[in-house]
């Protein structure tokens, strides 16, 4: 038993060090800076630990916890994206007096929750991880507690998310009732099409998961929470929980529900199409960038789900590639927002961007690259994400899904172009201060250079993701 504990080493390290810095925060005054830097250190060390951990599949605790290449990939993706999100938003956090020492600690706790989500092989462990993550996210959404909009976002998110967690739990209990087990492998053996109750349970579980990744028709909270929460939190919301949620969804399709894939597929196809269409259409009229990015993230989840909807390994791979590139693009896009400051206020309206191409040409061209990539125009990285997804969709001969998906990319191109139009074609209204935020600039630079040079060696990511499913 003790010999096996090294499988759990990243989680153990993460939780122990989180509690250690929590103590540090309690006993040292004005400790935000120290805690923040320690958090970054912890994230980097956890990445190192995971990289040192072997990749072959191992299960412990009565097969309820699994460590394999799949979960390790997602853990590293979560850690790296959190690292970038946190560091590029540091100036923003301090300037908006969000610099409470709990901030990074709660983020660490939510990451711990996600670790258990992606590693779970059991309904109970999966639910615990999900709740740990959700509870942390509720607090984060309302972390600017004196701000009405932030508190509103937190409460709204809490009420709706609690409801969805309830549905999810109900689904889990039904599943346990009909299959007699909480273990994913055992559930998979028990399930078949004749088991109507289990199909019922699956629908409940899917509703809960769709809520967490804000897929239509369970997306209602997304725009309000994205707009209300402070930008640094929105950034985190838009990137990290989506990765974990998608991983969980793929995991459910891979193991417990692999025998009732057809029933599960129909629902995912619907959710995917609805998300793509709503994400594209509703974003057109938005005036606030964060709200627009909320709808765009709904649309992007739709594309990733199109990959999942194929129900084939190649489809899951394409969805994982999609979400990875999505993370890169969104980190870049949000980092740009950290550089738009005027009189100490960070601007969020699209019209404020007008004419930044003349005053801040580098920022403008980075934004341009990221936006064209989000729109999926070749030869940028975003195109490859969509290309892989639709390749795998067409492999399964799901022509309607592919054609609808690609048509919505044209609609969504319209609103990305609208931002580009504001940046490049309009005359400037306000002049932004030249903000010195090295980490955000580094994030933007990295994000842009990855997106720009992705076409040179597209197979790096491809090979990496392929290797997740080899065993």
């Amino acid at each position: 038993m003790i010999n096996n504990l090294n499988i759990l080493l990243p989680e153990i390290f993460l939780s122990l060090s989180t509690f250690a810095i929590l103590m540090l925060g309690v006993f040292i005054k004005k400790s935000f800076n120290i805690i923040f830097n320690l958090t970054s250190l912890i994230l980097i060390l956890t990445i190192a630990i995971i990289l040192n951990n072997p990749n072959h599949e191992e299960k412990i605790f009565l097969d309820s916890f699994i460590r394999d290449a799949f979960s390790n990939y997602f853990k590293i993706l979560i850690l790296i994206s959190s690292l970038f999100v946190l560091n590029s938003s540091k100036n923003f956090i301090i300037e908006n007096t969000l610099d409470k020492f709990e901030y990074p600690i709660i983020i660490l706790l939510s990451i711990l929750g996600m670790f258990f989500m992606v590693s779970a092989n059991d309904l109970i462990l999966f639910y615990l991880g999900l709740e740990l993550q959700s509870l942390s996210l509720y607090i984060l959404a309302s972390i600017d507690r004196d701000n009405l909009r932030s508190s509103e976002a937190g409460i709204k998110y809490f009420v709706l998310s609690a409801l969805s967690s309830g549905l999810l739990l109900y689904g889990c209990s039904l599943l346990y009732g009909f299959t007699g087990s909480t273990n994913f492998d055992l559930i998979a053996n028990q399930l078949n099409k004749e088991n109507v109750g289990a199909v019922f349970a699956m629908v409940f579980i899917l509703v809960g998961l769709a809520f967490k990744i804000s897929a239509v028709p369970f997306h209602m909270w997304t725009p309000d929470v994205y707009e209300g929460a402070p930008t640094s939190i929105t950034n985190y919301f838009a990137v990290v929980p989506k990765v974990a949620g998608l991983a969980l969804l793929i995991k459910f399709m891979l193991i417990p529900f692999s025998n009732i894939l057809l029933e599960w597929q129909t629902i995912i196809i619907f959710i995917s199409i609805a998300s793509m269409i709503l994400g594209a259409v509703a974003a057109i009229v938005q005036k606030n960038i964060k709200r627009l990015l909320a709808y765009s993230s709904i649309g992007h989840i739709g594309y990733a789900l199109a990959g999942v909807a194929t129900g084939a390994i190649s489809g899951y791979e394409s969805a994982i590639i999609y979400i990875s590139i999505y993370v890169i693009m969104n980190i870049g896009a949000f980092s740009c927002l950290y550089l738009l400051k005027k009189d100490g206020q960070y601007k969020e309206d699209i019209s404020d961007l007008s004419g930044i191409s003349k005053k801040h040409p580098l920022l403008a061209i980075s934004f341009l690259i990221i936006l064209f990539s989000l729109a999926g125009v070749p030869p940028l990285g975003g195109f490859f994400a969509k290309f892989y997804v639709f390749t795998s969709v067409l492999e399964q001969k799901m022509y309607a899904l592919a054609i609808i998906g690609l048509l919505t990319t044209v609609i969504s191109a319209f609103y990305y172009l609208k931002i580009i139009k504001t940046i490049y074609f309009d005359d400037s209204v306000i002049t932004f201060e030249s903000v010195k935020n090295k980490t955000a600039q580094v994030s933007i630079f990295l994000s842009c250079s990855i997106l720009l040079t992705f076409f040179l060696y597209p197979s790096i990511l491809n090979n990496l993701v392929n290797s997740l499913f080899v065993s």
Partner: protein
Amino acid sequence: MNFPILSTLIFLPLLSSLFIFLSKDKKNNFSSIYISLFSSIATFLLSLFLWYSLDVNTADFQFVEEKSWINNFIKFKLGVDGISILFIVLTTFITPICIISCINSVKERVKEFLIAILVLETFMIGVFCSLDLVIFYLFFEGGLIPMFLIIGVWGGSRRVYSAFKFFLFTLLGSVLMLVAIIVIYWLTGTTDIIQIYEIKIPKEYQNLLWLAFLSSFAVKMPMWPVHTWLPDAHVEAPTAGSVILAAILLKMAGYGFLRFSIPMFPLASEFFTPLIYSLSIIAIIYTSLVALMQDDMKKLIAYSSVAHMGYVTLGIFTLTKQGIEGSIFQMISHGLISAALFLCVGVVYDRLHSRLISTYGGLVNYLPKYSFLFLVFALAALGLPGTTGFLGEFLILTGTFQKSYLVAMLATLGVVLGATYMLWLTKRVIFGVTKNSEIETLSDVNKSEIIMLATLAFFVIFFGFYPAPLMETFSVSVNSLIDNYQLALNTR
């Protein structure tokens, strides 16, 4: 051939645009202009060398480069044959002219403009070189980004509308082509064009795939009824943008028909020939009539482009040697002539800031050199014997007469209409009475404008009298294209 000459050709402009991007040049933009001019002329010379060393006696692809790109899936494959080399040379020839033209016409953000032009050149050369469907799509679509910016940032008053229309129309057409490309991959297991030529695509798929490709090419060509973005884009784009749009971007679709639609889907190509005939005839006659009624010079030339492209599609789908050769020739000739006409409009626009025909009149009294050059290009555009415009239309009509008298008669009607609007334009702009007193103060063409226009005029007349260098280049490739097409029809 170990030296990757095609990759060099493609990435040389991109590299120099990076160089310009990094260069600091605050006061005037001389260094950026010189860098871009130098690099684009170097690209042109390289492409001439390529043309010179190309073996025109074989229809095989030459200078083929192959690199694994996405594992087990797509190869980065380039190569040229007798058809594509001419388009590459046209691209590299037009680009330096555009750069020279922007010395006079682009006043602000010159550096960015040059970067956009050079990046666009990379994409355009890539389109004509690629031997893989996905690579082709990448270059084909990638060109949208710089062109969108060229229209939107440096364009006229309605530039936003035109840029959006251009981008969304083209993107909408192309996504169906992307679906078709992926479907072809799953049908044949490859996206390598040479392999797909050999693997016959099943008959039941051909029609739908052909239509998917058409949706993209029809928009790009542009064919009636999806041509409406072109007049808007042309009118609002800056001169250099219009030139590139007319001279090269429109040719991508014609090239696409020759490279993809006909060889990959011969049965569908035969099946849809009547459709293409009708659309082409409508384009020729209808847009010629529309062109007659324009009061904006750029719009008139834009509509005439649609009509000329109608001849091209007509010629390609006659699938006769004369028809296809005429189409390729017409594309090259239109590339030179329409570029020149847009430059001519640009010359007077830079001086008077008006594109309206009614602003001008009697230019011949004050701008004799300009009027002479304008007349040469107007006559070439209406197809006067001795210019390239005549040969292209003549060959296309010869090809069409072999297939259908009715279609050929209707197409010939377009020649008459073409002469009407072109001569009327010339009459109103160059000759007639000088109503506008500002014209008297105008200066004649300056040195850089003379260089651009005279070079174009030289080639228009030279190839009009001596088309052999062009014809010999693509003749063998066209023959093999038709042979393979007939073979596919006979063995169905």
